[in-house]
């Protein structure tokens, strides 16, 4: 039983690691700059101007 729970924790930790790696790779590919480009100016769509 303990093995199943340990495996469950291990799997979640592995998925978190994979998600963090994915995020880091995305940032390295320039996505963080795209996010910044949108977030650092007034978003006309968000405020309802279009």
């Amino acid at each position, binding site marked *: 039983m303990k093995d199943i729970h340990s495996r469950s924790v291990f799997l979640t930790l592995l998925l978190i690691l994979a998600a963090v790696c994915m995020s880091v790779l995305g940032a390295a590919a320039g996505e963080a700059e795209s996010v910044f480009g949108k977030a650092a100016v007034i*978003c006309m769509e968000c405020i309802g101007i279009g």
Partner: protein
Amino acid sequence: MAKHLRKIIQTGWGLLTNAYVKGFLPGGQTLYTGPLKHFCVPGMNCYSCPGALGACPVGALQAVLNERHRRFPAYVFGYLAAVGLFVGRFICGWLCLFGLLQELLYMIPVPIPKLDIPDKIDRPLRRLKYLVLSVLVIGLPLLYRTKYGAGVPFFCKYLCPVGTLQGGVFQVLLNDTLRPALGWLFRWKMLLLVLCLLSSVLIYRPFCKYICPLGAFYSLFQRISLIRIRLDNNKCVDCGICQRVCEMNVDPHKDPDSAECIRCGECMKACPMHALSFSIIGKHKRQSEDEKSKPTCRRRQHQM
């Protein structure tokens, strides 16, 4: 203090993530443009809010999907998946400013009873947020392009009341040059915002229950997240108090990892037997297994 801990954390987090005071001053710089804007906050928080220090994850996801050269939004998707895998919808209950606003509105006393949506209507409506996530946040921003080749952030543009409140209202009040440009879209979004805020007085967190795409995304990880709510079957006496206090209409005693649970912890506070608690998966289960070996005859004694 402990009684209001969640409200204090929600408020503190909201102030911290919107701490660019200069943005609120008339005639000043309207937005923070420093390096923190590269990063997303975990909850709904419009990046066009004059005080916002970080980016909105839903807006950021659409911004990457809207690019001319289509690519998988690994940066934002990975970040949101990591948060979801770590804590699930805990973010909704503890670190979302718009969630706090809805909760405060729900606390306003009204002469009519608060609305209890019948299960028949409530259940299908809860699925609406998954539709919003898949169509307005991912599908259309990925597939649709204007004749100039740019994508459209459909959720932000046509639906998001958070952007209207945090971005729209403040920016229009502080920025004279924006006012002549207001048209039908602003009126439509204001109508949605007013409906959302008014319904929050009668319904607990209607936006979170039925519309929020971020809550929908985090809910996908509820059952596999590292931090979860655990029920100790040896302590539970099936009194049903946890279900009665849950404003999200979850029954923690039957399904503590429900996709609708925002992990606010109200059920834990209300449980007279302290049978519910936050736990790191595995650890608490092992404890429960150990406790199961001990003889107990307390079940249902509480009801007698």
